[in-house]
């Protein structure tokens, strides 16, 4: 597209040609961006359609007579809000655990290096390669032994630590926190825990924020693990609840879409608000060698 635009404008001045190329690129990107958003948009639109309108052929894009019935009935007839609450508690607890373990061990791995500690870090990094699905079965037995099936605590056990989080904080500590700062605090007589809590943690606010967003979304969108841990209707997370709901009610598209929209819209909004944090967190994985 941009090539055609360039050749057509070859008689024009370089500045004009540049403008035409830019416009062509903008057009391509704009169409593509809207296409990427289209499925999510259609889903939300379906949530407002009446059952009659959903059965029309060809399908409508925008709801012709918007209705809130789907939302009302899905909230009234299913434990949707309970599922959202379960997911939310699970995600918050997982975020707290991951941020806490990553902050302290990232700091120690970054600043207290000897052969033993480096070896421990290597082990943690090595386990990061192994996908969760590989060791899910023995982990399930761990949860079962503790009697924590069908509970938020059982869900949490799978999402207590994140290797990438420890790695991220360690890299940040090495790159930005000078040894002299820690030494100066020690000479002033500060204890090691005090230094970590009062000096280091405030400096880690940026990367810990990025990590928190990553951890929250990771737990919020988890699927395979909650599917095996939470098997009673009351303990489902929203992802599991929705997936089983949709296999049970294959026809009732309106209520399904309403339920899906109720999940999607808050998380997408949250993402838009926290975009910078999130992008920073994900992008820094790109530096992993």
């Amino acid at each position, binding site marked *: 597209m941009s090539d055609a635009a360039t050749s057509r404008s070859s008689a024009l001045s370089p500045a004009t040609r540049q403008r035409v190329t*830019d416009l062509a*690129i*903008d057009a391509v990107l*704009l169409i*593509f961006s809207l296409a*990427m*958003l289209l*499925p*999510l948009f*259609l*889903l939300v639109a379906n949530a407002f359609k009446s059952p009659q309108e959903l059965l029309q*052929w060809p*399908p409508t894009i925008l709801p012709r007579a918007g209705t809130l019935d789907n939302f009302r009935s899905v909230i009234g007839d299913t434990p949707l809000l309970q599922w959202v609450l379960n997911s939310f508690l699970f995600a918050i607890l997982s975020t707290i655990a991951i941020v806490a*373990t990553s902050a*302290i*061990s990232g700091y*120690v*791995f970054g600043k207290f290096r000897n052969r033993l*500690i480096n070896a*421990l870090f290597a*082990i943690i990094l090595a*386990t990061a*390669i*192994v*996908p969760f*699905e*590989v*060791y899910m*079965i*023995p982990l399930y037995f*761990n949860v079962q032994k503790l009697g924590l099936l069908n509970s938020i605590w059982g869900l949490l056990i799978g999402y*207590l*630590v994140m290797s990438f989080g420890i790695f991220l904080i360690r890299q940040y500590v090495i790159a930005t926190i000078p040894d002299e700062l820690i030494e100066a605090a020690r000479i002033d007589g500060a204890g*090691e825990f005090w230094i970590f809590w009062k000096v280091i943690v405030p400096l880690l606010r940026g990367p810990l924020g990025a990590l928190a967003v990553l951890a929250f979304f990771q737990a*919020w969108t988890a*699927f*395979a693990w909650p*599917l*095996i841990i939470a098997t009673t209707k009351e303990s489902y997370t929203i*992802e599991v609840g*929705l*997936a089983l709901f*949709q*296999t*049970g009610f294959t026809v009732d*598209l309106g209520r*399904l*879409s309403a339920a*899906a*929209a109720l*999940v*999607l819209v808050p*998380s*997408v909004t949250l993402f838009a608000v926290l*975009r910078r944090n999130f*992008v920073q967190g*994900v992008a820094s*994985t*790109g*530096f992993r060698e």
Partner: protein
Amino acid sequence: MLQRRKFLFAILALAPTLAIYAWVRVYPIGDVLRLSLYQWNLLSRNKPFIGLENFRALLDDQLFLDAITNTSIIAFGILAITIPLGMGLAMLIHARAASRLSGFYETAIFLPHVASLVPAAMAWKWIFDARLGPLNALLGWFGVQPKAWLFDPVLAVVCIIVLGAWQALGYAVLIFLVGIKNLPTAPYEAAKIDGASPWQSFRYISIPLLKPITLYVSVVTLVAGFNVYAQAFVLASDSQGAPGRLVRVLVLDMMENSFRNYRFGYAAAEAVVLLLVVLSLTAIQFGLLRERGGRA
């Protein structure tokens, strides 16, 4: 004295994390390797050691072979769409970095990556729906006969690839953008002086310089592709609503063998196969990176 105090702090501070790791990562990984060598069924009293028998049985198991074939096709299909498209889009976004819309492009392309999987898959399920879906309506305008996208074994795999690529693309674009921003400018200036076209500098400068990034994104995308599960669970439910009957994928087969058939040793062997796939992909990545370093 100080050294000892520091070391004591380090170990005390690490202790909780290490204990958690030992219990939720190291032990289960070791256990899955052990289980894969046993005939470990929930109901049987003896759980004998059978060596590699589980793995031999996998080779004769048509369901497993279907699953691994489907999973590989899906993973490489997603890769084939995501890498060229991701690199191209990242180049275009980078070219328009000054534009007021660049934030919108990035967000719009990245959103599917963070959108919850199940609602997103449900959106696509409607799009692909044979009777009511907009895809068939759109194709109808061009005179194409409506197709039962999700009920044909081949087309259903295509649908899962499209959904997977839609989700993976945002991550690829993001990482490529980081890589492109960090490219040196000197080679491009030299090429411009020598009269190279934009396409030539893309082909002969950008693509080679981006090779490490491309390798990294490829491995991440492939590993994620081999773990495909929820997509198949939601999209490929059969007419009675039973999930994943039509397109069997590896994780689904593993989940059925463990939590439906209670053959945990057998399922553990499948998990080990998945681990071997991931390890070899990572090893290939490192090998290709080293090869490049050697030549440079």
